[in-house]
């Protein structure tokens, strides 16, 4: 674990100054490859409809699903397209799920005059008892019933169903299966302890100064200013820092200035300007000492649709001078010291949370891995670029570390796949709320939360890190 061996010299600095102060060298980057090229968008054309992305998703995932289906239900099962279905014949169908939800916000309904509806208030969950599941393939769609958990599944999932069609035209499901985890490349991790720090939700520009000290403590620990010598030498083993989104707070997104009168807002600056300056300074401190990967998040100044493109380097004039600063996409995939990392800033998990009955972020994270798709609800309820050739969110290789940012709390789990894949699932908590970050040890793929606190006027309980 991090800094356990530091315990020996813990009180070493409670002494008169010594002549020599030891300096530790940061562990060098042994291997790093950024594998997120398929998330980069070059020229973008929005002339296409979103049907193409569903079509390509189905085409890409169909063979995987058929293989899984044959493994699960026997190789002799009949695989049918929806147009070939015959009543009462047990067969396997593969298609895209569509969940028709009564409470799903629909812009057409909102602006429709004949309905005369007020805009729907935003909810945490949009599921309802009356939701229905429909399976669509290339040509047809069919309503589903039976042993399928309607509340849990979300639109856009590709799955294989085993059952039969009834006379009334509905498909009665007996069993279902997902694409499950893909192959995993062998992990060639380091032989000594090496850490990667995952942080998300710095929330700069949020207005509340409470998290600032925590953030400064984080930067100080990583850059080796804080702590006794033992801890500093352990911190020198942090080989990378990944900032997983929401570097700016939601408050910077305030667009009131558009509605206010011009004379009131004439000289005001957008809140994100100050926040980005602060972020630049923090990144400068970090990148002067450790390689940093910055992923954009929901409230960051980049495009809204997934995959989010990297933040623009002109926003970081100070930190951008260092080659250790890397601005990367969301989602982000990289090989760090032989360990494959894949993660998002949390928008995919958050969106599934809204439209599914699953409550636990870690559970949703695991579920996306089983389904074989990073973000099945895109483009239905989550903005997405209209791909047409390939769907880059389909898992091609199984990662070793799979994370999502901006979760309500820290959770981690080691998952073992059917074919022996080992994945460490991590939900990174929102730093501005929890003052907690995650340290991942690349040697043995374990994860440890690290939390920071100052002190405030109302003492005692305020210092305790209460995480569940």
């Amino acid at each position, binding site marked *: 674990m991090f*800094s356990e061996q*530091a*315990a020996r010299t*813990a009180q070493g*600095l409670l*002494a*008169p*100054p010594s002549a020599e*102060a*030891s*300096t*530790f*060298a*940061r562990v*060098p980057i042994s291997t790093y490859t950024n594998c997120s*090229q*398929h998330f980069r*968008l*070059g*020229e*973008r*054309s*929005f*002339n296409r409809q979103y049907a193409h992305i569903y079509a390509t998703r189905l085409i890409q995932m169909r063979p995987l699903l058929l293989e899984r289906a044959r493994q699960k239900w026997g190789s002799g099962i009949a695989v049918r397209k929806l147009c070939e279905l015959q009543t009462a014949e047990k067969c396997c169908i593969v298609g895209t799920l569509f969940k028709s939800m009564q409470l799903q916000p629909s812009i057409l309904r909102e602006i429709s005059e004949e309905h005369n509806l007020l805009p729907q208030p935003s909810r945490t969950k949009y599921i309802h008892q009356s939701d229905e599941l429909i399976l669509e393939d290339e040509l047809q769609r069919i309503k589903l019933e039976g042993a399928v958990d309607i509340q849990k599944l979300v639109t856009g999932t590709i799955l294989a169903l085993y059952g039969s069609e009834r006379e009334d035209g509905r498909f009665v499901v007996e069993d279902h299966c997902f694409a499950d985890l893909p192959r995993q490349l062998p992990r060639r991790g380091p032989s000594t302890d090496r850490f990667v720090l995952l942080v998300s939700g710095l929330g700069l520009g949020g207005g509340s*100064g409470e998290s600032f*000290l925590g953030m400064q*403590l984080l930067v100080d620990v990583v*850059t080796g*200013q*804080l*702590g006794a010598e*033992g*801890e500093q030498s352990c911190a*020198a083993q942090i080989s990378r820092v990944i900032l997983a989104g929401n570097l700016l707070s939601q408050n*910077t997104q305030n667009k009131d200035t558009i509605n206010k009168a011009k004379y009131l807002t*004439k000289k005001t*600056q*957008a809140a994100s300007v100050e926040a980005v300056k602060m972020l630049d*300074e923090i990144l400068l401190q970090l990148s002067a*000492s450790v390689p940093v990967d910055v992923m954009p998040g929901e409230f960051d*100044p*980049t*495009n809204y649709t997934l995959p989010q*493109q*990297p933040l623009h*380097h*002109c926003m970081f*004039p100070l930190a951008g*001078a260092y*080659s250790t600063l890397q601005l990367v996409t969301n989602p982000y995939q990289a090989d760090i010291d032989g360990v494959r990392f894949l993660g998002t800033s949390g928008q995919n998990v958050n969106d599934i949370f809204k439209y599914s009955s699953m409550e636990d972020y870690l559970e949703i994270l695991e579920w996306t891995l089983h389904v074989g798709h990073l973000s099945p609800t895109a483009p239905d309820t989550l903005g997405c670029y209209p791909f047409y050739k390939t769907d880059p969110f389909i898992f091609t290789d199984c990662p070793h570390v799979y994370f999502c940012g901006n979760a309500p709390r820290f959770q981690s789990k080691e998952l073992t796949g059917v074919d022996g894949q080992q994945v460490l699932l991590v939900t990174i908590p929102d730093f501005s709320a929890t003052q907690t970050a995650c340290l991942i040890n690349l040697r043995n793929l374990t994860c*440890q*939360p*690290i*939390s*920071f606190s*100052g*002190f*405030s006027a109302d003492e005692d309980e305020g*210092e*305790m890190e209460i995480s569940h």
Partner: protein
Amino acid sequence: MEDELYLENIDEFVTDQNRIVTYKWLSFTLGVHVNQAKQMLYDYVERKRKENSGAQLHVTYLVAGNLIQNGHICHKVAVVREDKLEAMKSKLATIASVHVYSIQKAMLKDSGPLYNTDYDIVKTNLQNCSKFSAIQCAAAVPRTSAEVSQVQTSAQADSQTPNDTHAVNVPTINGHVSSTAKQPSPQPKGIMGMFATKSASKSQDTNKETKPESKETTIATTVSSKVSPKGSAMSNFFGKAAMNKLKVSSECEQPKEEKTVAKPSVSVTEPKSPPSAAVEKPGKKMEPVKIQQKDKRRAKRMATSDNEEKEDENLKKKRRRIKRPQSDSSEDEDVSVSPTPQEAKPPLPSPEPALKIELEPATTEASTGGKKRKRKRVLKSKTFVDSEGCMVTEKVYESESCTDSEEEFIKSKLPAAHNQSTAAVRKEPKEDRKGLKKGTATASKANKQVSIMGFFQKK
């Protein structure tokens, strides 16, 4: 004795200056390693308390260690007051480090002031913030400006390759061609042609905001039609002006369309920005174009926070160049703009105002309306003390954020500028410019006058 020196220093800081002395602040102030600073603080506390047990000294400590929480081990790092130190230490299963965090005279209610102290000292030492740190990273070396430009062009080239997989055609209206290499071919000729040759060398200024091409070409054509006789001199001006760290040089300014900040002098030199929608940020209008060229520029940027001040200052510097061309060499170091445009300027004071004038009506004509904020060139009085110690008031153009409704006032101010009485000879070029502007302003007003044919044309 040497050892006593730091004790005296700390004593002075804490008791006399009543500061909050954090280890980081001490480390930067005395220029020592952070660990030594921590030890110094501890030593001071011990000695002071031994001498005078009633000393008014409050200490905060940093405690770090492992905490067992809900079954998993959490590493905790906390700043605690002295009275809570033992309590915190007992909560931790293993203690990884304890050291003095800060010393101050007064009892701190919360840790806010600690953060502020650290923030201030780091801010003043941003360029070498990890100099006294215990960890040195070999990979973290600041890039030189040449490398920076290389990286930026390669970043553009990289973003080209995904194009092939995603884009069907190359819709020149919808998309933006990202690579500088592709710039010359699809763009219209004329002034763009002049810039294209420059842009290859000026690849530092890549990736600026997206500009609506239609607007760009409008401005470009109006500019080109009037400026083409001036030829290469003006293109020099534009080309080098792009290297300015000004977001908009005062001569070439455009109102914003919709929500994007248009930086035509910069953008026109780089007509192709990468298609990243990352740059379409409504809140970015104040953010100056960061050109990573020289450290001093960055330092200068940090020094001036207000955009308007900066522009004005550069404006004034440009003005001075025109007035006193012989003092070019002495001002070279001070002025943050690159020297070449300044050399181009003195021989061409007249095309400059002509250009300004042309852009002004273009500015107003090309505005799409809508209640969005634009950056306008507004005539304002600026009072400053010149080199001879005299107070001088000038009416200068200054870019300011305002709406369409304020356009009309600009025109009315232009004739008012003429009335200002200025006796000094060196003000003549400016007067000429203003006179010219007034003439053109009235001319443009005349152009705008509705003719009787208007009744017959619109059906």
